[in-house]
């Protein structure tokens, strides 16, 4: 994985001191509330519902064991013994004191981490495929370009006061696991016939009030031009994006109102003027970063593991977990294992400091010292020897992170909702908890098969409900929690936005409503058809009929 060199280290160190100064200026009254707000937000420090909340970036989701231990340490020392992994490969602490935040940042800097630009109207943490570097379906490790973008976007002098927040995601795999089409800029790495790397670049995707699947602007931007192309998009957006209306300030609105063709032309014109500038990526720099993501020291192992096969035959619970939470690795003899942070009735994404420490120890022992955080709020062990999978799973069981539900209906993506968030209009996690109980039976879940269920507590859609096969949006109706249901959202390579079923459901009816949707699917599906495919085939009508039959 990437390691800071002296330049990177200086940046985070100086950032810590700058923020320490800003906090001191706020406490002394030199800065007012309004002046301090944008400064703290640019460092991921929110004033949330109950207290401050600090969001720490986990660039492209990659964590070393040292970093994971530090996250545990911070939870223990400055917070309440837990952290919450978010839907954008970040971790949030819900109870830090303002006066402690500079020290927290210093602790983070000591392990090459930061909270830079985890909020604010700037370029946010760059996210990527959690299987980068280990999946068989990728062209190259997408984190190389994520890291290049991370550096370029850090304290960008021109793009730190954009009309609105700006999110970039990168994938290099055929199966898009980073939801790149729902980002302000989505980057897909391709290789052309000549074997050269290039990027398909999309812009104007997003969730929120006006969900949009990003259209492609350019199908193959040469590798060396990645930054110039992104800079061109950002410049057009910075100058022309709306600043008069918060709800229309995202780049997707600019793309929609300008039209994809006209927008693309503006970007291409700007790009033509800057592509030969200092933004051109030197081959040495790409090589330097690439070297950090070279394959680790794999052992030469046979494809089959006798130990694994034996345990699969012997232990039914393990076999069940394996069939769901283990993924194929590109290296023979290795496997990708996902630890679930979605236990039945649990809080999706929550992780205690003891769990974090234990997970770090396990990663050290079983996964070459590396863990990945997913936007689905789970943790991936990317380098597990097949021979080690059984003992690793046993430890997962001990830690309560062995729920075999990856990509199943109880692997729910959820924002914090009204329990913690100052923007939320309804709670989302309690709904997730009830749903995970209702569908806790593993046999039933596996029978239902791949089904993404996403819940957001407000229109900002941090719970990605637009992209859920079943999406749930909490709304406030006369001080009562109601939940709107959408069907048919999807965030893979064939991304789509969910359709609203109709009137929303009261809190005590939403779980039944979801069950009704599942029942209709089970009745309608043909063979092994996934929910999304059934929905696309049969459409909304049968679901709607059943959902609103009594009305």
């Amino acid at each position, binding site marked *: 994985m990437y390691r800071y060199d002296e330049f990177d280290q200086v940046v985070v160190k100086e950032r810590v001191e700058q923020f320490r100064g800003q906090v001191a200026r706020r406490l002394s009254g030199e800065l007012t509330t309004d002046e301090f707000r944008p400064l703290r937000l640019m460092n991921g420090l929110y004033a949330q519902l109950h207290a401050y909340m600090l969001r720490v970036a986990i660039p492209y989701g990659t964590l070393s064991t040292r970093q994971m231990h530090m996250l545990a340490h911070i939870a223990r020392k400055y917070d309440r013994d837990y952290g919450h992994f978010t839907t954008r490969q970040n971790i949030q602490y819900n109870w830090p004191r303002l006066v402690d935040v500079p020290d927290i940042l210093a602790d983070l800097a000591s392990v090459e981490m930061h909270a830079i630009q985890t909020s604010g109207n700037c370029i946010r943490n760059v996210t990527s495929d959690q299987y980068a570097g280990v999946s068989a379906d990728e062209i190259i490790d997408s984190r190389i370009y994520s890291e290049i973008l991370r550096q370029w976007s*850090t*304290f960008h*002098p021109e793009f730190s006061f954009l009309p609105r927040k700006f999110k970039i995601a990168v994938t290099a795999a055929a199966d898009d696991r980073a939801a790149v089409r729902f980002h302000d800029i989505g980057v897909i790495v391709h290789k052309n016939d000549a074997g050269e790397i290039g990027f398909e670049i999309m812009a104007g995707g997003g969730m929120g009030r006006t969900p949009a699947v990003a259209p492609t602007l350019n199908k193959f931007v040469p590798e060396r031009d990645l930054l110039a192309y992104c800079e061109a998009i950002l410049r057009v957006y910075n100058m022309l994006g709306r600043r008069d209306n918060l709800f229309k300030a995202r780049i997707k609105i600019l793309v929609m109102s300008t039209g994809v063709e006209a927008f693309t032309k503006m970007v291409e014109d700007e790009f033509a003027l800057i592509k030969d500038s200092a933004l051109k990526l030197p081959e040495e720099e790409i090589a330097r970063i690439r070297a950090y993501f070279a394959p680790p020291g794999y052992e030469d192992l046979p494809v089959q593991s006798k130990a694994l096969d034996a345990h699969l035959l012997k232990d039914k619970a393990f076999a069940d977990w394996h069939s769901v939470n283990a993924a194929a690795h590109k290296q023979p003899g290795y496997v990708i294992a996902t630890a679930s942070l979605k236990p039945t009735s649990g809080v999706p994404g929550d992780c205690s400091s003891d769990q974090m420490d234990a997970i770090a120890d396990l990663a050290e022992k079983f996964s070459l010292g590396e863990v990945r955080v997913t936007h689905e709020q789970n943790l991936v062990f990317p380098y597990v020897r097949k021979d080690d999978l059984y003992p690793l799973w046993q430890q997962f069981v001990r830690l309560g992170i062995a729920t075999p539900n990856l990509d199943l209906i109880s692997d729910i993506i959820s924002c914090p909702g009204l329990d913690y968030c100052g923007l939320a209009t309804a709670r989302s996690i309690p709904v997730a908890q009830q749903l995970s109980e209702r569908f806790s039976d593993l046999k039933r879940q596996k029978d239902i098969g791949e089904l993404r269920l996403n819940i957001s507590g407000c229109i900002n859609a941090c719970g990605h409900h637009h992209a859920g096969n079943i999406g749930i949006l909490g709304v406030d109706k006369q001080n009562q929690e109601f939940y709107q249901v959408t069907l048919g959202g999807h965030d893979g390579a064939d991304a789509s936005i969910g359709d609203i079923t109709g009137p929303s459901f009261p809190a005590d009816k939403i779980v039944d409503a979801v069950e009704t949707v599942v029942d209709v699917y089970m009745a309608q599906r043909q063979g092994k058809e996934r929910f999304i495919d059934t929905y696309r085939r049969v459409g909304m009508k049968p679901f709607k009929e059943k959902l609103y039959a009594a009305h």
Partner: protein
Amino acid sequence: MPLIRDGNLALDQWVHRGDDEPLADGPTIVSLDRWKRDRATLLTRNAPLGLRLKSDQAPAQVATDLGLFGVVALEFPTFKDGRPFSYAKLLRDRYGYKGEVRAFGHILRDQYLFLDRLGVNSIEVKDEKQLKEFKTALAEFSVFYQPGVDARRPAMALRRQVASALKPSRPDFDDLTRVEDVPPPADAPPAPSSARIAVSDAKVRAFSHKYGHLSAPKLIAAMIDVEFKGSIALVSSFGTEAAVLLHMVSEIDRNLPVLFLDTQKLFGETLRYRDQLVGQLRLTNVQTIRPDPERVKDLDPNGMLFSRRANLCCQIRKVEPLAKALHGYDAWITGRKRYQGRRRAVLPVIEAAEGRVKINPLAGWSKDLLDEYFAEHGLPHHPLESEGFLSIGCMPCTDRVAPGEDMRAGRWRGQDKDECGIHETPAAQSLTSSGL
């Protein structure tokens, strides 16, 4: 309203004028609307004209007129409106505008650095106290990832430079720094870690064998990053040749402790040169070491000790403070070279000194090589060099050197002394003996 221009408070000769206000006689800034409306009249005025752009007025629409304006003033209606950042960049980069680019309106102190990076060279500020804020804000970061309009080089360029400096592309350097090939003794211990080590001659020989053949930058890198990580310092005089070593260090670890002995008898030029180099090389850990005021009060109350007992003067102003400052370090780097003559003619690259390892990476460098290095890296020369000072120490004891003279001939001229003592008196001993 006060104005910060080019890093200092400046008298603002420009006045802003509204669209229907009478024009001032002197330099006047008008809006884009007025420029478009009254262009012909404005061009006949006999005073400089400036242009004011609102945040929704991109400079593209006046690109061909820009040469007519002495200043382009960019308005920030609120600090959140980031459009003028792009305008500044375009004015400089795309339209090649060379005049003053000014920012005014609602600007946070924490945006000053961004403005500076994008070529804004003046800011209308609410009060003169903002100058201090401005200077602090500009010093908050020393590494930048993006190419800007300013002279700061982005990390990517610096990395390339470091990489090329570390590449063994100049074998001649290696030859020049090679020391006698002393085979290591049979019982040569493994290379010591950064833990405190007792330095024996045998160890130094082993060290020399392992590292003595490296070029200066590689040797420094190995010492800083591997052998003595966290326990090594550079001692620099910021004299005529110091820039070479400082430059090498700045490309390896700008945060390496650099100990600078301010004897309080130095040339003002040296102090200014120090600040210039620290700024240009962006050194982040230069520690200025000063004499113990008690000792000075005691032994040199009227500051004339140098004239009576130069050795004692050096002792309290250099030897003792350095001994104290080196406490806790296992090794230090010096800039001494053999060509400097006299006792330095036989200088090894790596030597033991008072329980520490002393590294002299430039021991084998010639004056020509140094000059070449200065030129190649665009390093500034010490301001006194052109005045004939080839080796610079404290003002009272440094004289010019005549052509043909040994370069250190100007040091303690007329005295039987050619070293101050930091390179020979056992530093640790003097620390004890002086009772510090």
